[in-house]
C-alpha cells in the first residue's frame, strides 16, 4: 500500500534508483572495495616492511617475479584506485559548491585514478616479465 504522502511514481518506486538515478551502486561499490582492501592492504604493508625496504632495485624486481606477488599487487592497485576514486568523489561533492570547480575536480579525480592505476599496473607487469639475465 502506497503511503499517502509519497509523491513518487510507481515506476520510480519499483526502480528504486532515487534522486541520483544510480541507486545504491556508488555506496555498495565503496563497501565491496573496502572489504577487498582489508586483506590486500594488510598483505601489502606486511610485504613492504619485510621484503621491499631495500635500496637495491633488483630485490624489488625479484619480489615481483613471483606470480602470486604480481597478481596480488595488480589486484591491490585496481581495487585501491577504484576505492580512492569513490571516496574522493564524495569529498568533492560534499565540500565544493561551485559547479565549474566541482565538475572539473570530479573529472580530474577520475582521470588521475585511472592514470595512476594504469601506470602502476603496467610497471608491476614490466617488473614481473623482466628478463633478469639481460636487464638491470
Amino acid at each position: 500500500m502506497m503511503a499517502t504522502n509519497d509523491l513518487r511514481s510507481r515506476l520510480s518506486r519499483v526502480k528504486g534508483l532515487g534522486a541520483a538515478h544510480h541507486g545504491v551502486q556508488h555506496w555498495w561499490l565503496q563497501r565491496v572495495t573496502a572489504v577487498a582492501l582489508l586483506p590486500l592492504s594488510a598483505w601489502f604493508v606486511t610485504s613492504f616492511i619485510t621484503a621491499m625496504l631495500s635500496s637495491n632495485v633488483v630485490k624489488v624486481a625479484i619480489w615481483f617475479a613471483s606470480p602470486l606477488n604480481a597478481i596480488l599487487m595488480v589486484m591491490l592497485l585496481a581495487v585501491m584506485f577504484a576505492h580512492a576514486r569513490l571516496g574522493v568523489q564524495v569529498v568533492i561533492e560534499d565540500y565544493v559548491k561551485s559547479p565549474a570547480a566541482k565538475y572539473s575536480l570530479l573529472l580530474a579525480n577520475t582521470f588521475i585514478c585511472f592514470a595512476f592505476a594504469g601506470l602502476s599496473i603496467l610497471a608491476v607487469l614490466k617488473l614481473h616479465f623482466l628478463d633478469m639475465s639481460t636487464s638491470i
Partner: protein
Amino acid sequence: MQSDIKAVLRPTSPHLSIYRRQISSVLSITHRLTGLALFVGTGLIVLWLVVAAYAPAHYTTLHSSLHSGFGQICMLGWTLAFYYHFANGIRHLFWDIGKGFTLPVMHRSGWTVIVFTLLMTAVTWFIAYTSTGTLS
C-alpha cells in the same frame, strides 16, 4: 502568538568553532582526512613502481629521499593514516550492517581504533627497522 515566535532566538547548530569536540565527530572527520592523505600516498606507490620498472638507475635516489628526515615524517604519517583508515573502515562496515550504534559501544570501538592505530604503527616501524638487511 506571532511575537512569541520572534522572541525565541535559539542558537543554530552546529557552530563548529565553539561546539565541544566529541570522539564521534573527531573520528569521523579524521576518517576523511586520512582517506585524502592515503590518496596522496598512492601517488608515491605509483612513483615507486614506475621508477623501479622504468628508471631503475634512479631507484637509489628515491630510496634515500624516503630515508631523509622529511621522507620519514611522511612515511610515519602514512603509516598512521593507513592503520587508522583500516580500523575505522572496519568500524564503518559494522555500522553498515546495523551493529555497534549504541553510545557506549561506539565510544569503545572509537578508542579501540585509536589504540590499534598507535600500536600497529609502532609494531610496523619496529619490524621495518629491525628486519635484517632490508634497510641497507
